[in-house]
Structure formats: structure tokens, C-alpha cells
């Protein structure tokens, strides 16, 4: 729908990571990773299994804080050590396993952990109102009722609810972890359209994906992780399918990527 190339020059990045590291025990999962994420753009984060994509976003989301490196948000260094702090900055994550409670309805899920209150009791009316407005604002019209339980929704609808929850909070950065992994063709299209709409509304979006078609369909920027290192962050318009695949599988592609330390014998 939207041509990524037509986007205006993005200005200063909303989120900048500089040289972040993360180890679990003896295993170093992230090594000196740099990442820039811009408002109004979809930044695709790609990489093979175990490349560190999930660890990187969990660091940004405050689930597992980074061990070291700079975390700049809106140009200021910040410390994010818990999900609440990330949320307070305007960072929202839509996890791969969706992190929805099947037993609760759409409204309850969208406000999970941040319920609105009137006095000591829940303000259901206002929450329902805001949930509806947010879904309408995203042109979501596949939900019959915001009072259905999430268990009764299809995969695409669940993904939609998870995304709507992420934008409910005037968030600035929405991170989506493989939002189309479990979806059929039609639902994938719907979700990708929604992802693009988020960026077009001015949000910064990080999209984690294994699917090159998805990436090239919606991304403005592509950041490729290779074995815990940032191989390259490039404009989607500047690279080909094949180059991205090489960055993912080998960490380099021609001049792009991690240049081999000279070990030629």
C-alpha cells in the first residue's frame, strides 16, 4: 500500500542502542549491538534462530535488562529494568505467544495490568469505550464484540487485539515479535496492513520476522542480527531479498555486514 521510499527523512532516531551486551551465564547472546529506530518507520529485525532477536527486544522491553551499552530514548540515556519503565517511556511489546489471557474478554486484555478505576472499583464503561475507540482508530472491523473472551477469537483477531493493546497507551514504539508466524494468508495481509498503519500514524515500529515477503512488504529499515552481532542496518529500498538472506545466514553480503577479521591463510 504505502511506498516506503516515499517517507520523509525521519530525523533523529526515537530509540538508539549503542554497543549493548547481554549474557546469560557464560553465554554471550548480544555483542555490542547498535540499533536505530525512527518514528513513522517500520524497522524489521531479522536474523536466524538464536541470533538474539528475542533477547534484544526483551532488553528494550525491560524483561531482561541489558548488561551494558547505551540505551537512548528520544535522545536521552535511560535505564529500563522492568516492563513498567518501558511502558512509561511509551514502549509496548506484542509478544509472539501474544501474552493474552484466554479467560478474559477483549477489553480486559487490552487493559491488563493497567485497569482504569472509579473509586476502588473498575471503570468498565470507560475502558470499553476506549477499547472500542482504539480498535476503530486502527480500522479494525473484524471483531464482533469487545466483550467476547479472547479464547473465542481467531489467530488474526488475537493478534489484532494484542496490537490494539499496544497502541492504547499513546505509545511511541511498538515492537511486534513475529506477528504473522501462526497466521494464514488472508490474516497475514490484515495484520501487515495494520502494522503499516501504525507507522503511518507516526509510531515507531520494530517488526521481528522470519518471512522476507513480510519484511519487504512493510519495512522501511532492515536490521539483521547474526550470532548476537548487528550485521547491518540498511534501508529496505537499498537491498535485495538475496542480500538480506546473506546477512542473516552469513553475517555479510558483499560490502555489507560484518567484515571478516583477516584469517586468510
Amino acid at each position: 500500500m504505502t511506498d516506503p521510499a516515499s517517507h520523509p527523512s525521519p530525523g533523529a532516531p526515537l530509540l538508539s542502542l549503542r554497543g549493548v551486551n547481554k549474557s546469560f551465564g557464560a553465554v554471550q547472546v548480544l555483542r555490542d549491538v547498535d540499533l536505530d529506530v525512527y518514528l513513522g518507520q517500520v524497522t524489521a529485525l531479522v536474523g536466524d534462530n538464536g541470533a538474539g532477536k528475542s533477547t534484544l527486544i526483551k532488553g528494550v522491553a525491560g524483561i531482561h535488562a541489558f548488561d551494558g551499552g547505551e540505551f537512548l530514548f528520544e535522545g536521552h540515556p535511560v535505564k529500563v529494568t522492568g516492563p513498567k519503565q518501558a511502558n512509561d517511556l511509551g514502549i509496548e511489546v506484542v509478544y509472539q505467544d501474544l501474552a493474552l489471557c484466554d479467560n478474559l474478554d477483549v477489553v480486559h486484555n487490552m487493559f491488563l495490568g493497567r485497569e482504569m478505576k472509579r473509586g476502588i472499583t473498575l471503570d468498565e464503561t470507560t475502558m470499553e469505550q476506549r477499547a472500542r475507540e482504539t480498535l476503530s482508530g486502527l480500522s479494525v472491523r473484524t471483531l464482533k464484540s469487545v466483550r467476547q473472551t479472547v479464547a473465542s477469537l481467531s489467530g488474526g483477531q488475537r493478534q489484532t487485539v494484542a496490537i490494539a493493546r499496544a497502541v492504547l497507551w499513546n505509545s511511541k514504539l511498538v515492537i511486534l515479535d513475529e506477528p504473522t508466524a501462526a497466521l494464514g494468508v488472508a490474516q497475514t495481509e490484515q495484520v501487515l496492513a495494520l502494522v503499516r498503519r501504525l507507522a503511518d500514524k507516526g509510531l515507531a515500529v520494530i517488526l521481528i520476522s522470519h518471512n522476507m515477503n513480510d519484511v519487504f512488504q512493510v519495512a522501511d529499515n532492515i536490521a539483521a542480527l547474526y550470532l548476537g552481532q548487528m550485521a547491518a542496518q540498511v534501508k529496505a529500498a537499498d537491498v535485495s531479498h538475496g542480500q538480506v538472506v546473506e546477512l542473516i545466514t552469513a553475517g555479510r553480503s558483499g560490502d555489507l555486514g560484518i567484515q571478516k577479521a583477516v584469517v586468510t591463510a
Partner: protein
Amino acid sequence: MSTTTPEAPATVGDSRVNPVKAMLKSDRPYTVFAALIVLVVFFSVLSPVFFSAANFANIGRQTTLVTIMAVGMTFVIISAEIDLSVASILKLSGVCAALFMQNFGENWVLGAVVGLAVGTFIGLINGLLTTRLGIPSFLVTLGMLGVAKGLAFVITDTAPVLIDNTAFFKVFYEGTILGLPIPIIWTAAVLTIGGVLLHFTTFGRKVYATGGNAVAARYSGINTSRVKIYCFMLSGLLAGVASLIFAAQAHAARPDFADGLELDVIAAVILGGTSLFGGRGTIIGTFIGSLIIGVLNNGLVIIGVSSSWQIAVKGLIIILAVAFSARKR
């Protein structure tokens, strides 16, 4: 990509929210209620004594302990844990309260506070062991069942602890308010407060989220361990309330009373539609579930079923009810 769909309707879904309706809809108290009606009709046909105001007041009084503890158990089970120690907490809280009154000048208010504090404290221990050490609550509370019961026998030397305090009896069992026996007032108060807490507050929502999907709850910033600890504490507190009502009824606290009562409590909660896997359940359902237990206990006696058979019949009906509800789900 096709985005040529017509203009979106202004809203998504039209159901105006009615919290009470949503609460009723969220599970199936209707079917449980139907089962209760069937039982009442059944016993009424078999015995003319059963269907009378006096007998219903009886059932209300007899059901008090189970209902009050079942409210706490509902929170615990919705948070995807279980508390097998409630009957033992009742014993220990009761004898602690009674011993305190016996030895410290019959101050019933302080005695009651001691009873409630003991119950809440054991709940706290249950919660801490379950969440901090990661031992399944089934095992923690099974152990606590023995510990609390044993302690109750130890500190009383296995003898009933007599209470002689008219005010205490009045407040917890013998008084009336607006013509209603006070145990029924206590039950109504616990049901109301429990219902509001579970269905209309942030805490209640956290309980559902914790039991429904603990990972999602944690990712949403909910401290699921703390939620579970509070649920166990509430269960302990309400077992303490039940212990005071029982002590006021018996004019004594007895360490040998209430063996196996936790099974009635858990049965009431499950009959009421609360899922043993967590995440689902209502206070109204629990209330109806405990009324079913009460009607069974009372009706089987009235129609003259021998007490040995009563136990078996009650178990059978519980299995049937749960099997029925499992099939419906």
C-alpha cells in the same frame, strides 16, 4: 494488498457493558442453580419437613462455614492454586482465639483478632512456600493440613477449649440483625465483599489474569506471586472467620472438629463452576455450590439416609456434577 474495503463502522461491537450481566455470563451459575432447584424439589417431594422456613434457616446456618471458606478458596483456585489446609487452619485459629480469651481476661475482640491473625499468617506461609520455593500448592497445603492440625492438638493437649463470653457468642453466632441469624449476616457480608473484590476491582482482575495466563500477567506488569500470596492469605483469613463462628456456636474451640471439611469447601467451589485449572469462576457460583452441599447434607439426613451412605452419595453427586460441567465446557 486489498485495502479497498468500505468505510469502517464507527464502533466495534455494540454490547453496552453491564458488569453484573458480564459476571453472570462469564460462567454458568444458571446450570448450577438449576441443579440446586432440582435437589430442593427432590428432597421436598420425599419429605414434608424439608421445605419449610425453619429448615431453610437451618441450611443457611449449617452452610455458613463452608460458604465463608469457599469464598477464599474461590480466589485461590481462580489463581490456579489450591488450599487443602483450610479445615486445619480453622482448627488452629479457633483454639488460638479460645486459648487467648481463656488466658487473657476474656477480651473477645483481641481473641477474635488473634484467631484471624493466625489464619492469615498460615495463609501467608502457604503463599510464600508456593511462590518462593515453587513447590506446588497441592503439596504445600497438604503438609500444612498436617502441621496446623497437629499444632492445634499440641497446644490444647487434644481437649476442647471452652469459651465463656456472651458477647463473643452474640457477635458470631447467637445474635440476630433484623430478625436474621448472625451467621447468615456474616455469610452475606463475606459473599458481598468477596464478590466485589473478585469482580469489580483491579485485584480481582489480577487474580483472573494470574490463573488464566501467568506469563501474560507477568508481561503486563502483574506481580503474580504477590497475587497468589494475597489469595492464600484471604483463604486463611476466612478460615479464621469460620473458626470464630464455629467456636461461638459450640461455646468451645475443638481441635478434633472439621476433619475433611476442606473437601466440602473445594466441592462447593468446583460445583459452582470454578475451574480447577484456574482463570474461571464466580462468587455467585460458589455461593450456589455451597448451597448444594448444604442442601445435600441436610436433605440426606431428613430423608433418613444413613450417615455412611450420605458420604458415598455426596461424593457420587459431586462426581456427576463435575463430569456434567466438564462435558458442557
